[in-house]
Protein backbone atom coordinates (compact mmCIF):
# COMPACT_ATOMS: atom_id res chain seq x y z
CA UNK A 1 0.00 0.00 0.00
CA UNK A 2 1.35 3.37 -0.99
CA UNK A 3 0.25 6.13 1.35
CA UNK A 4 0.84 9.85 1.04
CA UNK A 5 0.45 12.40 3.82
CA UNK A 6 -0.25 15.99 2.84
CA UNK A 7 1.73 18.67 4.62
CA UNK A 8 0.38 22.22 4.86
CA UNK A 9 2.00 25.14 6.64
CA UNK A 10 0.81 24.64 10.22
CA UNK A 11 0.24 20.88 9.98
CA UNK A 12 1.80 19.27 13.05
CA UNK A 13 0.62 15.65 13.25
CA UNK A 14 2.18 14.29 10.06
CA UNK A 15 4.96 12.37 11.84
CA UNK A 16 2.57 10.58 14.21
CA UNK A 17 0.39 9.67 11.26
CA UNK A 18 3.41 8.43 9.30
CA UNK A 19 4.52 6.25 12.24
CA UNK A 20 1.01 4.80 12.64
CA UNK A 21 0.82 3.90 8.95
CA UNK A 22 4.37 2.56 8.89
CA UNK A 23 3.57 0.33 11.87
CA UNK A 24 0.92 -1.56 9.90
CA UNK A 25 2.30 -1.39 6.37
CA UNK A 26 6.04 -1.48 7.01
CA UNK A 27 6.44 1.23 4.37
CA UNK A 28 7.22 4.88 4.96
CA UNK A 29 4.43 7.09 3.62
CA UNK A 30 5.36 9.90 1.26
CA UNK A 31 5.10 13.37 2.73
CA UNK A 32 3.54 15.62 0.09
CA UNK A 33 3.90 19.40 0.19
CA UNK A 34 0.69 21.39 -0.32
CA UNK A 35 2.15 23.27 -3.29
CA UNK A 36 2.42 20.10 -5.37
CA UNK A 37 -0.15 19.85 -8.14
CA UNK A 38 -0.03 16.05 -8.44
CA UNK A 39 0.01 13.08 -6.09
CA UNK A 40 2.93 10.63 -6.47
CA UNK A 41 2.14 8.00 -9.11
CA UNK A 42 0.55 4.88 -7.64
CA UNK A 43 -0.76 6.53 -4.47
CA UNK A 44 -3.38 4.27 -2.83
CA UNK A 45 -4.27 6.35 0.20
CA UNK A 46 -4.09 10.08 0.92
CA UNK A 47 -4.08 11.21 4.54
CA UNK A 48 -4.73 14.76 5.70
CA UNK A 49 -3.30 14.88 9.22
CA UNK A 50 -4.08 17.12 12.15
CA UNK A 51 -2.70 20.53 12.92
CA UNK A 52 -3.57 24.14 12.34
CA UNK A 53 -3.10 24.64 8.61
CA UNK A 54 -2.67 28.31 7.71
CA UNK A 55 -3.24 29.26 11.35
CA UNK A 56 -6.95 28.38 11.00
CA UNK A 57 -7.39 31.70 9.16
CA UNK A 58 -10.92 32.54 7.95
CA UNK A 59 -12.27 29.10 8.96
CA UNK A 60 -10.42 25.96 9.97
CA UNK A 61 -9.36 24.23 6.75
CA UNK A 62 -10.66 26.97 4.44
CA UNK A 63 -7.24 28.07 3.21
CA UNK A 64 -5.85 24.55 2.86
CA UNK A 65 -8.90 23.61 0.77
CA UNK A 66 -7.74 26.14 -1.85
CA UNK A 67 -4.20 24.78 -2.17
CA UNK A 68 -3.01 23.15 -5.42
CA UNK A 69 -2.68 19.66 -3.91
CA UNK A 70 -6.34 19.64 -2.84
CA UNK A 71 -7.43 19.82 -6.47
CA UNK A 72 -5.40 16.66 -7.03
CA UNK A 73 -6.87 15.06 -3.89
CA UNK A 74 -10.42 15.89 -5.03
CA UNK A 75 -9.71 14.37 -8.45
CA UNK A 76 -8.19 11.30 -6.73
CA UNK A 77 -11.33 10.92 -4.58
CA UNK A 78 -13.54 11.32 -7.67
CA UNK A 79 -11.63 8.42 -9.28
CA UNK A 80 -12.48 6.27 -6.23
CA UNK A 81 -9.27 6.93 -4.28
CA UNK A 82 -9.11 6.44 -0.52
CA UNK A 83 -8.76 9.58 1.59
CA UNK A 84 -8.59 9.87 5.38
CA UNK A 85 -8.81 13.21 7.18
CA UNK A 86 -8.12 13.48 10.90
CA UNK A 87 -8.95 16.57 12.95
CA UNK A 88 -7.76 19.50 10.82
CA UNK A 89 -7.77 17.00 7.94
CA UNK A 90 -11.51 16.42 8.52
CA UNK A 91 -12.04 20.18 8.53
CA UNK A 92 -10.16 20.42 5.22
CA UNK A 93 -12.23 17.60 3.65
CA UNK A 94 -15.39 19.46 4.64
CA UNK A 95 -14.13 22.80 3.33
CA UNK A 96 -13.13 21.07 0.09
CA UNK A 97 -16.66 19.69 -0.22
CA UNK A 98 -15.55 16.04 -0.11
CA UNK A 99 -17.62 15.46 3.03
CA UNK A 100 -20.86 17.20 4.07
CA UNK A 101 -21.67 19.52 6.94
CA UNK A 102 -19.49 22.00 8.77
CA UNK A 103 -17.35 22.02 11.90
CA UNK A 104 -18.30 24.78 14.29
CA UNK A 105 -16.54 26.03 17.36
CA UNK A 106 -17.02 23.58 20.25
CA UNK A 107 -20.31 24.28 22.01
CA UNK A 108 -18.38 25.02 25.23
CA UNK A 109 -16.20 27.53 23.32
CA UNK A 110 -13.22 25.72 24.86
CA UNK A 111 -10.39 23.90 23.16
CA UNK A 112 -10.90 20.28 24.21
CA UNK A 113 -7.81 18.20 24.86
CA UNK A 114 -8.91 14.94 26.45
CA UNK A 115 -9.72 11.29 25.98
CA UNK A 116 -13.01 10.34 24.39
CA UNK A 117 -14.74 7.07 23.58
CA UNK A 118 -15.95 6.24 20.11
CA UNK A 119 -18.51 3.72 18.96
CA UNK A 120 -17.87 2.11 15.61
CA UNK A 121 -21.20 2.29 13.81
CA UNK A 122 -19.98 0.64 10.62
CA UNK A 123 -17.36 -2.02 10.19
CA UNK A 124 -17.83 -2.34 6.44
CA UNK A 125 -15.60 0.60 5.56
CA UNK A 126 -11.95 0.50 4.48
CA UNK A 127 -11.10 2.31 7.72
CA UNK A 128 -13.00 0.22 10.29
CA UNK A 129 -13.20 -3.38 9.00
CA UNK A 130 -10.91 -4.71 11.75
CA UNK A 131 -13.16 -3.47 14.56
CA UNK A 132 -15.84 -5.77 15.96
CA UNK A 133 -19.36 -4.54 15.08
CA UNK A 134 -20.49 -2.02 17.70
CA UNK A 135 -17.01 -1.80 19.19
CA UNK A 136 -16.21 1.08 21.55
CA UNK A 137 -12.64 2.31 21.68
CA UNK A 138 -10.76 5.01 23.49
CA UNK A 139 -9.23 7.85 21.53
CA UNK A 140 -8.08 11.43 22.04
CA UNK A 141 -9.64 14.68 20.99
CA UNK A 142 -7.64 17.88 20.67
CA UNK A 143 -9.59 20.57 18.88
CA UNK A 144 -11.34 23.91 19.21
CA UNK A 145 -13.65 23.51 16.22
CA UNK A 146 -14.98 19.96 16.16
CA UNK A 147 -18.67 20.56 16.62
CA UNK A 148 -20.03 18.80 13.54
CA UNK A 149 -23.11 20.52 12.20
CA UNK A 150 -25.45 19.98 9.27
CA UNK A 151 -29.02 20.86 8.43
CA UNK A 152 -31.58 18.41 9.84
CA UNK A 153 -32.14 17.06 6.31
CA UNK A 154 -28.45 16.47 5.64
CA UNK A 155 -27.94 14.82 9.03
CA UNK A 156 -31.00 12.58 8.50
CA UNK A 157 -29.78 11.67 5.03
CA UNK A 158 -26.32 10.70 6.34
CA UNK A 159 -27.91 8.57 9.05
CA UNK A 160 -30.24 6.92 6.53
CA UNK A 161 -27.37 6.19 4.17
CA UNK A 162 -25.31 4.72 7.00
CA UNK A 163 -22.52 7.22 6.55
CA UNK A 164 -22.04 7.90 10.25
CA UNK A 165 -18.99 5.79 11.07
CA UNK A 166 -18.07 6.97 14.57
CA UNK A 167 -20.04 8.48 17.42
CA UNK A 168 -18.97 9.97 20.74
CA UNK A 169 -20.19 7.65 23.49
CA UNK A 170 -19.63 6.85 27.14
CA UNK A 171 -17.12 4.04 27.88
CA UNK A 172 -20.21 1.80 28.10
CA UNK A 173 -21.20 2.78 24.57
CA UNK A 174 -24.08 5.14 25.20
CA UNK A 175 -24.42 8.22 22.99
CA UNK A 176 -25.29 10.63 25.79
CA UNK A 177 -25.11 14.42 25.78
CA UNK A 178 -22.34 14.27 28.39
CA UNK A 179 -20.21 12.08 26.09
CA UNK A 180 -20.68 14.62 23.28
CA UNK A 181 -18.21 17.16 24.59
CA UNK A 182 -18.00 19.37 21.50
CA UNK A 183 -21.76 19.46 20.83
CA UNK A 184 -21.83 17.63 17.48
CA UNK A 185 -25.20 16.85 15.90
CA UNK A 186 -26.21 13.25 16.83
CA UNK A 187 -22.85 12.77 18.67
CA UNK A 188 -21.19 12.42 15.28
CA UNK A 189 -17.40 12.05 15.44
CA UNK A 190 -16.67 10.58 12.02
CA UNK A 191 -18.45 10.29 8.67
CA UNK A 192 -17.70 8.85 5.26
CA UNK A 193 -18.54 9.49 1.62
CA UNK A 194 -21.27 7.57 -0.21
CA UNK A 195 -18.67 5.14 -1.60
CA UNK A 196 -17.16 4.90 1.94
CA UNK A 197 -13.69 5.64 0.62
CA UNK A 198 -13.40 9.16 1.98
CA UNK A 199 -13.54 9.37 5.74
CA UNK A 200 -13.10 12.21 8.19
CA UNK A 201 -13.01 12.18 11.98
CA UNK A 202 -12.13 14.70 14.68
CA UNK A 203 -10.38 12.39 17.21
CA UNK A 204 -6.84 11.08 16.81
CA UNK A 205 -6.65 7.27 16.53
CA UNK A 206 -2.97 7.68 15.58
CA UNK A 207 -2.30 8.59 19.22
CA UNK A 208 -2.98 5.03 20.35
CA UNK A 209 -0.99 2.69 18.13
CA UNK A 210 2.01 1.85 20.32
CA UNK A 211 1.73 -0.36 23.43
CA UNK A 212 4.48 1.68 25.06
CA UNK A 213 2.70 5.00 24.46
CA UNK A 214 -0.92 5.12 25.62
CA UNK A 215 -1.92 1.69 24.32
CA UNK A 216 -3.19 0.43 21.00
CA UNK A 217 -6.90 1.28 21.01
CA UNK A 218 -6.58 3.15 17.72
CA UNK A 219 -4.54 0.49 15.96
CA UNK A 220 -7.51 -1.40 14.43
CA UNK A 221 -8.20 1.63 12.26
CA UNK A 222 -4.76 1.40 10.70
CA UNK A 223 -4.94 -2.39 10.50
CA UNK A 224 -8.26 -1.93 8.69
CA UNK A 225 -6.65 0.35 6.12
CA UNK A 226 -3.79 -2.05 5.61
CA UNK A 227 -6.17 -5.02 5.34
CA UNK A 228 -8.33 -3.21 2.75
CA UNK A 229 -5.40 -2.84 0.45
CA UNK A 230 -4.07 -6.34 1.11
CA UNK A 231 -7.38 -7.84 -0.07
CA UNK A 232 -7.73 -5.34 -2.89
CA UNK A 233 -4.34 -6.54 -4.14
Amino acid at each position, binding site marked *: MKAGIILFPGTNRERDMALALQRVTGAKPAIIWHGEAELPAGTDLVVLPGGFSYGDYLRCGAMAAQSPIMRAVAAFAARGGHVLGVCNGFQILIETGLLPGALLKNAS*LRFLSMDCHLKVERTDTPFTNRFKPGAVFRSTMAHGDGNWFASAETAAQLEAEGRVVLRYVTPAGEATAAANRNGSVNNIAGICSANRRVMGLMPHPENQVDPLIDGTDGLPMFESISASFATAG
Partner: protein
Amino acid sequence: MKAYVTVMPKNGVLDPQGKAIGHALAGLGFAGVGEVRAGKVIELELSETDPAKAQAAAEEMARKLLANMVIESFKVEVR
Protein backbone atom coordinates in the same frame (compact mmCIF):
# COMPACT_ATOMS: atom_id res chain seq x y z
CA MET B 1 -13.77 50.95 -4.71
CA LYS B 2 -14.28 48.95 -1.57
CA ALA B 3 -16.57 46.04 -0.88
CA TYR B 4 -17.50 45.11 2.67
CA VAL B 5 -18.56 41.50 3.04
CA THR B 6 -20.44 40.83 6.27
CA VAL B 7 -20.48 37.14 7.16
CA MET B 8 -22.91 35.99 9.86
CA PRO B 9 -23.88 32.60 11.30
CA LYS B 10 -27.19 31.52 9.75
CA ASN B 11 -30.31 31.56 11.86
CA GLY B 12 -30.64 28.22 13.58
CA VAL B 13 -26.89 27.66 13.68
CA LEU B 14 -25.58 27.56 17.22
CA ASP B 15 -23.48 30.68 17.89
CA PRO B 16 -21.73 30.04 21.22
CA GLN B 17 -19.48 33.03 20.64
CA GLY B 18 -22.45 35.39 20.41
CA LYS B 19 -23.96 33.76 23.50
CA ALA B 20 -20.74 34.26 25.46
CA ILE B 21 -20.58 37.92 24.44
CA GLY B 22 -24.21 38.33 25.55
CA HIS B 23 -23.38 36.83 28.95
CA ALA B 24 -20.37 39.11 29.32
CA LEU B 25 -22.45 42.18 28.47
CA ALA B 26 -25.04 41.19 31.08
CA GLY B 27 -22.19 40.71 33.56
CA LEU B 28 -21.03 44.25 32.86
CA GLY B 29 -24.48 45.50 33.79
CA PHE B 30 -25.79 46.30 30.30
CA ALA B 31 -29.51 45.70 30.54
CA GLY B 32 -31.94 45.02 27.73
CA VAL B 33 -29.58 43.11 25.42
CA GLY B 34 -31.43 40.29 23.67
CA GLU B 35 -29.80 37.71 21.43
CA VAL B 36 -26.20 38.48 20.41
CA ARG B 37 -24.71 36.98 17.26
CA ALA B 38 -21.07 37.32 16.24
CA GLY B 39 -19.86 37.36 12.64
CA LYS B 40 -17.09 39.07 10.73
CA VAL B 41 -16.56 41.77 8.16
CA ILE B 42 -14.07 41.34 5.32
CA GLU B 43 -13.00 44.53 3.57
CA LEU B 44 -11.95 44.13 -0.06
CA GLU B 45 -10.20 46.77 -2.12
CA LEU B 46 -11.31 46.25 -5.72
CA SER B 47 -9.94 47.80 -8.90
CA GLU B 48 -13.41 47.50 -10.48
CA THR B 49 -15.09 50.91 -10.90
CA ASP B 50 -18.60 49.74 -11.81
CA PRO B 51 -20.53 49.28 -8.52
CA ALA B 52 -22.78 46.57 -9.95
CA LYS B 53 -19.82 44.57 -11.23
CA ALA B 54 -17.94 45.06 -7.96
CA GLN B 55 -21.01 43.84 -6.09
CA ALA B 56 -21.30 40.75 -8.30
CA ALA B 57 -17.58 39.97 -7.97
CA ALA B 58 -17.62 40.28 -4.18
CA GLU B 59 -20.70 38.07 -3.97
CA GLU B 60 -18.94 35.42 -6.04
CA MET B 61 -15.93 35.63 -3.71
CA ALA B 62 -18.19 35.27 -0.70
CA ARG B 63 -19.92 32.19 -2.13
CA LYS B 64 -16.64 30.53 -3.13
CA LEU B 65 -14.51 31.31 -0.09
CA LEU B 66 -15.40 34.07 2.34
CA ALA B 67 -18.57 32.43 3.69
CA ASN B 68 -19.32 28.78 4.34
CA MET B 69 -22.82 28.55 2.95
CA VAL B 70 -23.65 25.55 5.14
CA ILE B 71 -23.48 27.64 8.30
CA GLU B 72 -23.12 31.27 7.26
CA SER B 73 -24.95 33.90 5.27
CA PHE B 74 -23.40 37.06 3.87
CA LYS B 75 -24.23 40.46 2.53
CA VAL B 76 -22.09 42.71 0.38
CA GLU B 77 -21.96 46.47 0.56
CA VAL B 78 -20.00 48.41 -2.08
CA ARG B 79 -18.80 51.91 -1.30
